[in-house]
């Protein structure tokens, strides 16, 4: 493996890599603005310039100092090379570039959403100078509404052109361009266009400064209050890796989390803005038609058990139905099915219809033709997990298309439905279940089947629980709980944990071990990601 020395640290890499890329992978910091691993290299911000000593091609033991500063983002790493990013010359350039970037920057950090996660702030502190020597008038540039989700503060822009390259190379839509010249140039959309492609909001993440901001998040929270919890998209079968960013039990935004095999650096806008159901329109009470004052959880669970027992007693095995939701975790479905088959060994296992939006939407780089991102048509995050559970339990498995006839024929006497958190199939479901008297619904929202249920139990959404989702390619991905369950609600898993009489608190890891013991070893090997708290307290020595 080739190695080089960067500021006295050994950096090793594999294959052909640029100096900056090798350092990024090895965790050695070099300043950078315009460089992004997922985009083409333009080498225009000029802050990553370093001094290098390169091995002489004729005599590799001898190092030759390159007289110029070279852009580390664009210079290939060579075995045995020495890189100096802290030498007086390199440091002088970093200081100069920082000063140049800030002379026309409004320095309005107190009212800027990016403050706290801004590379201008970070690098100013590390590489810049403490005060401004610029006494002239700053260039004034407008704030622009460039798209459905994105607002552009032109005056804060440092012209790294990451966003322009994103629309040209990743989304392939090319709405953004650079207009004007010199210090008056600005990013803008081309005439008659608007930044409204399905990946548009990614430009907000790749903007290193506060120029491109999220309309949805604008002025709602200072970023240093946000906690960032690694999670999995609840809204797509692709299993995109995300961060849930939340504070005091409330989600403020969703950000993509890098996964080189699945979503790379990006997520689609429907995942980013699809978390409304967590905080809006939630079911909070356990209700039954004959108990308008409400029930306690114990009473509710007793009624559920009684309804299944009654059906079995009256009509025998096979007269009950459990509908699984592909929006629940695999562990929850495992517990649910275990309980259902314990109550009625012939219990039918059904599965809610997935939400399918047309066909998979594939994005390619127009120049290279490489696939950059795929938006999955199937919006349910754990359809494969649900099918695996049904296959594992076998026996009476009810296809969705037979649901209506089975219920109308009176073959089903009691049903427990785990409702989806979004109402895509409400109309069908309420039709099918119309004849059924004994209907229990586990739901996070007060509409849909809840309205006709004989008993409804409030459960929480994916952000309030932990578990695993299995994406459409069969990758099992764990996620952890981000926020506390809404008052009154419990996770589906904990409902069945209690119904099964297991001791202690609902523990997804314990369920995965049970699943592994039951012949599903792949679930035993899952390690959930560590919770990452974004707030890092500055060490006193650094102040």
């Amino acid at each position, binding site marked *: 493996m080739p190695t080089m020395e960067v500021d006295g640290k050994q950096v090793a890499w594999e294959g052909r890599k640029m100096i900056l890329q090798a350092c990024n992978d090895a965790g050695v910091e070099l300043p950078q603005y315009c460089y992004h691993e997922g985009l083409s*290299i333009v*080498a225009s911000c000029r802050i990553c310039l370093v001094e290098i000593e390169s091995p002489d091609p004729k005599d590799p033991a001898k190092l030759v100092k390159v007289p110029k500063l070279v852009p580390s983002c664009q210079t290939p790493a060579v075995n045995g090379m020495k890189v100096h990013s802290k030498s007086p010359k390199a440091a002088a350039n970093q200081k100069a*570039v920082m000063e*140049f970037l800030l002379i026309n920057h409004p320095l309005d950090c107190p009212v800027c959403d990016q403050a706290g996660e801004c590379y201008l702030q970070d690098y100013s502190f590390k590489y810049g100078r403490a005060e401004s020597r*610029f006494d002239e008038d700053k260039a004034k540039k407008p704030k622009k509404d460039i798209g459905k989700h994105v607002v552009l503060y032109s005056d804060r822009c440092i*012209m790294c052109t990451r966003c322009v390259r994103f629309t040209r190379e990743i989304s392939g839509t090319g709405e953004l361009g650079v207009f004007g*010249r*010199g*210090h008056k140039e600005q990013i803008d959309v081309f005439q008659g266009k608007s930044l409204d492609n399905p990946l548009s909001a990614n430009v907000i993440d790749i903007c290193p400064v506060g120029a491109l901001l999220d309309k949805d998040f604008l002025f709602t929270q200072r970023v240093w209050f946000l906690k960032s919890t690694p999670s999995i998209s609840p809204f797509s079968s692709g299993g995109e890796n995300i961060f849930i960013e939340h504070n005091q039990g409330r989600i403020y935004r969703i950000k993509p989390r890098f996964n080189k095999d699945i979503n790379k650096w990006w997520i689609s806008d429907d995942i980013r803005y699809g978390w409304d159901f967590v905080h809006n329109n939630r079911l909070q009470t356990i209700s039954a038609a004959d108990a308008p004052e409400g029930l306690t959880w114990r009473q509710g669970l007793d009624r559920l058990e009684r309804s299944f027992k009654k059906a079995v007693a009256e009509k025998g095995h096979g007269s009950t139905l459990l509908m699984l939701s592909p929006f629940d975790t695999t562990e929850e479905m495992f517990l649910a099915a275990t309980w259902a088959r314990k109550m009625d060994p012939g219990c039918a296992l059904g599965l809610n219809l997935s939400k399918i939006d047309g066909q998979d939407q594939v994005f390619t780089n127009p120049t290279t033709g490489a696939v950059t991102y795929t938006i999955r048509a199937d919006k349910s995050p754990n359809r494969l997990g649900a099918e695996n559970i049904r296959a594992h339990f076998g026996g009476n498995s009810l296809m969705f298309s037979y649901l209506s006839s089975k219920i109308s024929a009176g073959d089903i006497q009691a049903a427990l439905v785990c409702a989806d958190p979004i109402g895509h199939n409400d109309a069908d479901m309420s039709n099918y279940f119309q004849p059924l008297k004994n209907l229990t619904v586990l739901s996070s929202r007060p509409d849909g089947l809840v309205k006709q249920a004989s008993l409804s139990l409030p459960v929480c959404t994916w952000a309030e629980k932990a578990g695993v989702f299995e994406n459409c390619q069969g990758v099992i991905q764990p996620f952890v709980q981000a926020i506390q369950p809404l008052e009154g609600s419990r996770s589906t898993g904990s409902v069945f944990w209690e119904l099964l009489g297991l001791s202690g608190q609902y523990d997804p890891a314990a369920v995965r071990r049970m699943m592994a013991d039951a012949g599903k070893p792949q679930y035993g090997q899952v390690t959930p990601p560590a919770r990452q708290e974004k707030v890092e307290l500055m060490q006193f020595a650094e102040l």
Partner: protein
Amino acid sequence: MAFAGPVLLKRIPDDPAKRRLIRYSDYCATGGYEALKKSWTTPPEDIIKLVVESGLRGRGGAGFPCGTKWTFLPKDLHPRYLAVNFDESEPGTFKDRYLTDYDPHILLEGIAIAAYANRITTSYIFIRGEYHHEAKILEEALEEAYANGIFGKKLPGTDIVHNCYVHRGAGAYICGEETGLLEALEGKRGWPRIKPPFPAVAGAFAKPTIINNVETLACLPDIVLKGAAWFKGMGTPSSAGPKLYGISGHIHKPGVYEDELGIKMSTLIEKYAGGVKGKYRAAIPGGVSMGILGTDQWDAELDFDIGRKYNVLGLGTAGVIVMNDTTDLVLMLRNIVRFFAYESCGQCTPCREGTAWMHKMLNRIVAGFGRPRDFDMLMEVGLSMGSMPGTTICGLADGANWAVKTFLQKFPDDFKSRLKPEQVRGVTLTPAGATV
């Protein structure tokens, strides 16, 4: 053998009244396209060798050896393109325009020779957007050349059909930078490219491309006809051949004159330009990005070594601007920096922000609000922008920096006299460290 009369301008009379456009028939009648016919009977490798031996250096400003540039083309990689750099936008430079105004065929013959020698598929003449008249002349001359079998035919001994087109720029100085030119040629924003890959390997449309200046190509017919030794007989050992000098400013006869490389500036001014109006003070050797020659550098030799000898960036385009002692050098520098701030493409941070900052600072100094520390600030901004070579992608920042640096170094008093000590509520402050 020294300079024995005009080479490039041999068909253009000195007397403005007698100048007229030289058509294809006139051009051929005076020995035109003889060199092309001779070259078609010579193996292409020999022509490249001849150009290397002649020591012909690029006339566009950097002075890179032309033959050496041709040898960088990868072998057996086709198609190859030739981009003719006619984006003559350097202030004070008008030599290519003058040549094309009257004698467009000398350029076309040079293109045809270069195309034959390098197996070029397509030549693009990238002409500055503002040169409407010259674009029209070139289009007409091209039509004549096509009609007479100069272009649009198979290159002798190959299956390559060589075509030549005129491509008009949209009016940006930066498109005269070779990779900016290629981007503009491809229909993109004229932002210089990062190198590697170099244009000789992946240039226009990602194919091997040669980029040559108009005057460089116009030298080729005479080199082919008269040989390398004749060409080397003119000029100095490192700077061979004839050169077009454009001269303007405080002189009696501004215009384009031809002499060998390495003549003294004083000779150019007195022999050709009719002497200085008033008293000589300073001069810019070749386009404003080269810096300024001081009062004591009146006898500077105009060749490619001028940069090393006289503390300027280089000879540039040899578009000399002469200034007499009535010139306000602060205003002059402000105008130069304004040009660079306006023409900076905006890609690299130091150039985009630095040029505009210096312009604003000079505006303030001109308006009478300069402070003693501004002198050092101006110098420092200039230095951090360009004097460390390679801090930007292209040379525009270097050009701006050299202008500022040499003005301040050679004429510090012009600037310092405009700076007033700072006052705080009426109290005049002496700069720290100054001795009274």
